[in-house]
């Protein structure tokens, strides 16, 4: 483990940014944290987390897949893929780091998604341990320890110092780069912080939330539960929960007619939308109740069924704070879990 003082953090950032693009959570004008590119002196936000999740770095809301250009009767197909620049995302919280495992299983399974894979290959994730979780946090429900985040490099921030620990080869390389600016140290201070955070985690209002009622093989048990009607009653059918979610990975592929050709692009889609996966015969989920159920069944039953029991929720709490009608996965789990 290595450390640097917070006073020298900017020079460490400068060192990292000298060979790769560096992104970190920055306070925006309206007081919320946003992942932004680091420029000389850009201060790190103190906020617990960003409104938009860091999945945007690997799976952006829109991206062009290919282009077609028409000239007379010929069509030219243009590959728009470019080699991704190396980049580092600093300050990713433990929950969001876990979300990349979930996305990887979708995008890196055969057939590999080359667009996503290229960004994963060139991206280095530096996580940052939480010390002041919010009441909406429930990462521990999914076995995530907010105080010891994964990622290529893990960081812990104390009053005056930043501690760095490499976990992967990519992480080792990054630590090597900043070797001169950091010093070897013991992990005592980190251990102390972890214990303190663990005590806070136990006090969180959602600390008791558990996944016992969910997981692979529970489809028949849960699908026709009468509670779905009540839970989905007020759902507006907007896409807020899916778009702020770090693990939602559904997308649509669309063609945009530019007037002299076509851009084939993909963009996030939401199972909450009435036209989601619309096919020639029409929609396959006709009511909001069915769409609502799909979202939560996917996260809590279908995904674990296909992925060795891994739930596709990381308990980041974004949907808890952003849903216009305050309906969310924690309420669903409590209701169906028999509370």
């Amino acid at each position: 483990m290595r450390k640097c003082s917070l006073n020298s953090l900017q020079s460490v950032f400068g060192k990292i940014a000298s060979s790769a693009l560096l992104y970190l959570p920055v306070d925006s004008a309206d007081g919320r944290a946003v992942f932004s590119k680091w420029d000389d002196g850009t201060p790190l936000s103190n906020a617990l987390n960003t409104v938009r999740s860091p999945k945007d770095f690997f799976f952006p809301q829109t991206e062009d897949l290919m282009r077609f250009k028409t000239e007379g009767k010929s069509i030219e197909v243009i590959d728009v893929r470019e080699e991704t620049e190396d980049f580092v995302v600093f300050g990713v919280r433990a929950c969001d780091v876990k979300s990349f495992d979930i996305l990887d299983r979708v995008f890196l399974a055969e057939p590999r998604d080359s667009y996503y894979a290229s960004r994963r290959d060139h991206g280095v994730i530096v996580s940052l341990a939480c010390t002041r979780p919010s009441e909406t946090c429930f990462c521990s429900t999914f076995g995530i320890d907010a105080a010891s985040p994964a990622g290529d490099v893990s960081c812990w921030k104390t009053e005056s110092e930043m501690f760095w620990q490499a976990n992967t080869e990519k992480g080792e390389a990054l630590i090597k780069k900043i070797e001169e600016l950091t010093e070897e140290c013991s992990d005592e201070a980190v251990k102390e912080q972890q214990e303190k955070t663990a005590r806070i985690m136990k006090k969180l209002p959602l600390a008791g939330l558990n996944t016992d009622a969910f997981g692979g093989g529970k489809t028949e048990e849960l699908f026709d539960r009468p509670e779905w009607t009540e839970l989905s009653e007020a759902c507006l059918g907007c896409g807020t929960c899916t778009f702020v979610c770090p693990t939602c990975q559904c997308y649509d592929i669309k063609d945009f007619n530019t007037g002299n050709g076509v851009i084939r692009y993909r963009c996030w889609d939401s199972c909450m939308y009435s036209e989601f996966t619309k096919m020639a015969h029409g929609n396959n989920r006709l009511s909001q109740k069915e769409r609502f159920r799909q979202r939560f069944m996917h996260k809590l039953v279908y995904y674990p069924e296909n992925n060795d029991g891994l739930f596709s929720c990381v308990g980041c709490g974004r949907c808890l704070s952003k849903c216009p009608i305050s309906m969310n996965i924690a309420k669903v789990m409590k209701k169906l879990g028999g509370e």
Partner: protein
Amino acid sequence: MQKITKEQLTEKAVSLLRDGTVTHVLGWSAGEFDYDITPAVFSDEASLRKSFVWNDFCGANFSKYLVSKTRGIEGKLLVFLKPCDTYSFNQLLTEHRFDREKVYAIGIPCEGMADIDKVKAICGDGISSVNCDGEKLLVQSIYEDAPISVSPSDVLAERCVNCKSKKHVAYDELMGEDGDVLDSARFDEVSRIEAMSPDERFLFWQNELSRCIRCNACRDACPACTCEVCVFNNPRSGVENKSPANNFEEQMFHIIRAFHVAGRCTDCGECSRVCPQNIPLHLLNRKFIKEMNECYGEYQAGETVGSKSPLTDYTLEDLEPGEVFDRGDINA
């Protein structure tokens, strides 16, 4: 603190259910943390007593729910309406969007709703409970031993700071006292932006609109947006899109949405309340309201049922489109 209590509302709802006046109650259902309140339809006394809630975080405008929740029910639906909700209620009636016979509307006074983001700006994250019963909000955080006392006026939602009316314009029954139409400063921010140079205005809106993630929450919560299929969801419209692919798409969506509700928007502020990215969308609607008031005479959508909006009306002497920019004498 609200002037009417949760107990009064619950007893009212229970008595109306018991005597058969209504069969369902559209109300607020308690959440995990006192502030995450979900609209719900109650149909029995037990569930009302268990989960019905009324406090400073009951901001959701129920009027739009009447469109879907009055469909397919026997009997009447009881709805509690805050003053601003009653304007949307009338506007929806004007547009024949729900059956008035199926609704029993109770007007309830509102002292303004709190914005949880403002509470968190003062008290920090980790709020375990908020007590709204006294003069001050008592906010308990997991990081503090004693609750933090917050004045409601410091955490009032923007739309409530600039409340346009405490008067109920529609109800079957009123609980508590009716208020008055207020002289609000709601157009001040619009005027401030108007006074900027075009370049500044462009930058201001670029900065705001570029945050849009096109979740459609503004549209889906809007009581004026009640199309069965929105033009932006209809593949046959030619403009259907799911994402803010670039600046143009962001501008297009928000200009067109504001235009589609122009003259029908009651300025309830739901769009800005629900925006996960805190975009001040209400300013677009207020701009239209301000312009229409100045050019075609004062008009408040939803003030009466059946009124004609400025954009479905005309006079022979209207301003020419080129003249709206230099109408000095109108502003004077």
